[in-house]
């Protein structure tokens, strides 16, 4: 367990964390402001990845794929809000879970019919496929560094947007007290639709960036969805700052736990037990973290509602 | 003199830099109606919450019939003899009026952990519940869903539910709020009838009602008591006039 390895794994954790944050950022606002348990946010990840991969395959250019996919996901979020989600605002959580669960099935099937059940081919652009040495002897893929940078840039962008702009002020007010925001005469309908579309867009960006490194296939967003819900809960519903910190925490815990926990267990118990228990505990680690956080802070680390 | 029903000793509570209860001590005597008045933000509701157990004081003690209840939670305090109504009327909206009373009746009897007999068709529970409703004159509304009640009736129901636990002291948080003139008068009458049966701590902005009902009045400003006395004492107190006129 050298320092280089720990550093490299920290980068991996960061990369996982910022990706999670992109998915969680929109979702935490949707949950916090509109009070909608939106399970189909993973589908937005999938739509982003498919849009980018399909356009890239058609044009032969990775970046055109990226840039065209952004309006596609924005539009999909906008339309979805208009057609369905706005009718769910006053419903209880359970009904929202049910309806958006139905949406997941629908989108997965739609993609499967449209693009076939097989995973789509997508690869890195040549310009991003090299390595940099983050420490002597520790080459790191440029693309992953790029993902970290884009993710951080988005995070900073969201932070400035929420804390410095007028719309951001409305968003914060909405997260604190939805009734009051309506009373202030803010056009809540437009605000909601906008937040929803932007949230979808960020999830789409996460999907686009994941496309070249993972399998672009129906249902690809679901593991991310569950993890990003965990992130939101740990961070506190409605808090973008909480989502960011929790995403990094979850990314690091998941990555470092997976890699180092079995080895650490091996030094405590015998090899066979460690090999059995290590991966099991590692895969439970984020859920354990969430349960522990909730037991001690039942509304997460940074609750937005005060 | 008899032991006080409710006694607060040196109660303090702050939220961050804001002190809402500042070294507060006072008593509620058996059978009296004790009104607590003061401008908005004086800390009246927070004080009620501390007596009720929903908010824990930073320091100080609460006694009920001479027994300290400071550390107890809400259900324990209710069992010990504290009843309350809320600022926004708080009844079981999905239930009928009678069902509301039945839930309260079985809670009073300590029978809520029974799993066999149907509760809503139980004769003895129904009888007890009717008695609860009759105290506020809602018997003829028994079969109405609580959500169908008029505002004033709902407040009556809430008062009935609070009385159902046979409290030693009743905390009424603005019972006339939002009520029409007639409803206020009806409420005033009912509270008046309770005098002597149960000690009442009344928070109310309707000064006519306060001066008609209260045996004693305590004036709270910025978390501290500036005056306690009979209605006459208070209306003549210069400190109270300063506080009210000064802030107006």
């Amino acid at each position, binding site marked *: 367990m*050298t320092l280089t390895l720990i550093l490299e794994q920290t980068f991996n954790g960061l990369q996982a964390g910022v990706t999670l944050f992109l998915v969680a950022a929109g979702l935490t606002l949707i949950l916090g402001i509109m009070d909608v348990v939106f399970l189909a946010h993973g589908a937005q990840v999938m739509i982003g990845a498919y849009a980018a991969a399909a356009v890239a395959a058609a044009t032969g250019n990775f970046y055109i794929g990226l840039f065209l996919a952004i309006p596609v996901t924005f539009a999909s979020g906008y339309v979805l809000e208009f057609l369905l989600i706005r009718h769910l605002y006053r419903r209880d959580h359970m009904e929202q879970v049910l309806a958006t669960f139905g949406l997941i099935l629908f989108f*997965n099937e739609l993609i499967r019919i449209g693009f076939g059940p097989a*995973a789509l081919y997508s690869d890195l652009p040549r310009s991003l496929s090299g390595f940099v040495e983050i420490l002597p002897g520790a080459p790191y893929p440029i693309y992953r560094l790029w993902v970290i940078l884009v993710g951080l840039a988005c995070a900073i962008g969201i932070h400035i947007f929420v804390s410095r702009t007028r719309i951001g002020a409305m968003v914060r007010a909405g997260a604190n007290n939805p009734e009051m925001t309506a009373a202030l005469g803010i056009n809540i309908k437009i605000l909601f639709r906008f937040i929803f579309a932007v949230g979808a867009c960020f999830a789409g960006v996460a999907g686009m960036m994941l496309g070249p490194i993972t*399998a*672009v296939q129906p*249902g690809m967003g679901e*593991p991310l969805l569950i993890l990003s819900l965990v992130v939101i809960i740990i961070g506190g519903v409605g808090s973008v700052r909480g989502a960011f910190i929790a995403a990094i925490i979850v990314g690091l815990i998941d990555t470092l736990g997976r890699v180092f926990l*079995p080895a650490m267990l091996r030094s405590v118990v015998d090899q066979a037990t460690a*090999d059995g228990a290590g*991966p099991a505990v590692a895969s439970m680690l984020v859920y354990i973290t969430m349960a522990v956080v909730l037991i001690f802070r039942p509304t997460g680390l940074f609750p937005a509602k005060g | 003199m008899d032991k006080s029903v409710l006694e607060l000793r040196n109660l303090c509570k702050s939220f961050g830099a804001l002190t809402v209860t500042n070294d507060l001590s006072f008593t509620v005597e058996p059978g009296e109606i004790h009104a607590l008045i003061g401008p908005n933000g004086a800390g009246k509701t927070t004080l009620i919450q501390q007596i009720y157990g929903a908010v824990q004081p930073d320091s100080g003690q609460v006694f009920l019939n001479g027994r300290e209840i400071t550390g107890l939670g809400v259900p324990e305090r209710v069992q010990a003899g504290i009843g309350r109504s809320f600022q926004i009327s708080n009844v079981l909206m999905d239930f009928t009026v009678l069902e509301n009373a039945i839930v309260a009746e079985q809670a009073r009897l300590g029978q809520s952990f029974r799993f066999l007999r149907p509760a809503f068709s139980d004769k003895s529970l129904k009888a007890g519940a009717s008695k609860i409703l009759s105290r506020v004159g809602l018997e003829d509304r028994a079969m109405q869903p609580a959500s169908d009640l008029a505002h004033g009736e709902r407040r009556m129901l809430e008062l009935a539910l609070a009385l159902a636990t046979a409290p030693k002291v009743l905390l009424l948080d603005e019972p006339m709020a939002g009520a029409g003139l007639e409803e206020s008068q009806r409420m005033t009458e009912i509270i008046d009838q309770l005098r002597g049966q149960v000690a009442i701590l009344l928070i109310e902005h309707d000064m006519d009602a306060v001066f008609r009902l209260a045996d004693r009045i305590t004036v709270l400003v910025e978390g501290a008591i500036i005056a306690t006395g009979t209605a006459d004492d208070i209306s003549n107190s210069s400190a109270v006039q300063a506080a009210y006129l000064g802030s107006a």
Partner: protein
Amino acid sequence: MKKAFTIAALAAAITLAPAHAETVKIGYMTTLSGGAGIIGKQMQNAVELALEHKGGKLGGMDADVVFVDDQRKPDVAKQLANRLVKSDRVDVVAGIIWSNLLEAVHKPVTRSDILLISSNAGPSTVAGEGCHKNFFSMSWQNDQTPEAMGKHMQDAGIKSVYLMAPNYQAGKDMLSGFKRYYKGNVKAEVYTKLGQSDFQPELSALRATAPEATMVFQPGGMGINFVKQWKQAGMDGVSKLYQVFTVDGVSLPALKESALGILGTQTWSPDLNNAINNKFVADYKAKFGGYPSFYAAQAYDTILAIDHAIAKSGSKDTDKMRAVLAAGNIPTTRGLLKMNSNHFPIQNIYLRETVKDADGIVTTRVTETVFTDHADSYAAKCKF
């Protein structure tokens, strides 16, 4: 409400079960919906192709194949198996991709005295003590393929190896099969989360260990993720990659060039040169566009086996078909397939390399025969 449904259900069931005299009815269970639907689709294609090649008759009887979608859920699979047996009254139940689903349908089917022929799943439980005379595998026992990989790497003189598989039963079986034949230095055995999509942390850890070779088992979408990330992390310069069930006909279209040069073992390959296989691969490509996967080949073989059993026994009687199949020498895309005493095939296992064919399409090519007539190691424990 319920009554209406019951009547509808009755009507549906009655129309579904028409009575023919000389018809062999086969229930083919696979996963058609959901994420693994692509595998089931390929298998369905192959079954239909086999029927087409046989002119719609198996062993001279009219063939009626009922496809059912198990949704990759054990309880659905178990219920479908019961439906096939009790309601559709099939003569053979076949298909089944996943080990856990096979476990769920094994008892209800074999107990009904109906043949159960697996086109893919082959867990050790049904090969050893839990075997049943009515069960046949037309694929392989889980351990066989990694055993071949172990033998190849042992023979190739590879000194140290890093093992990686998902943390579930098949993953553990694969690695233990590998270690049965590989005796060199196993630097680490890493179990990843089932369904994991990002392997970068594991790759970083692997890089720090610098083993001579790496052997992975990451089936399905996990394999696509793993191989992509392996290439992107520049791991080829660190360690040589070997795999089982990770690079195959299902993942290759998504991987394309990034999988070139990777070695793996398998009981079948599209370039196996025999008449049956050549016809199968050529017609499959022509009809469905693209190479068949081993799943498709095994599904095709399953239908050929049923054809063989009926043709040779002249009957669709379970006892008679069983006797024919148990005797082996079943004509398949893998040549004449022998059968072990536990009704698992005894077969060759090949080393395959990912290459481009003459048209520039990425596929696999046999480079070496690792095992000739390889039998699984559980047959001794099987007593019917």
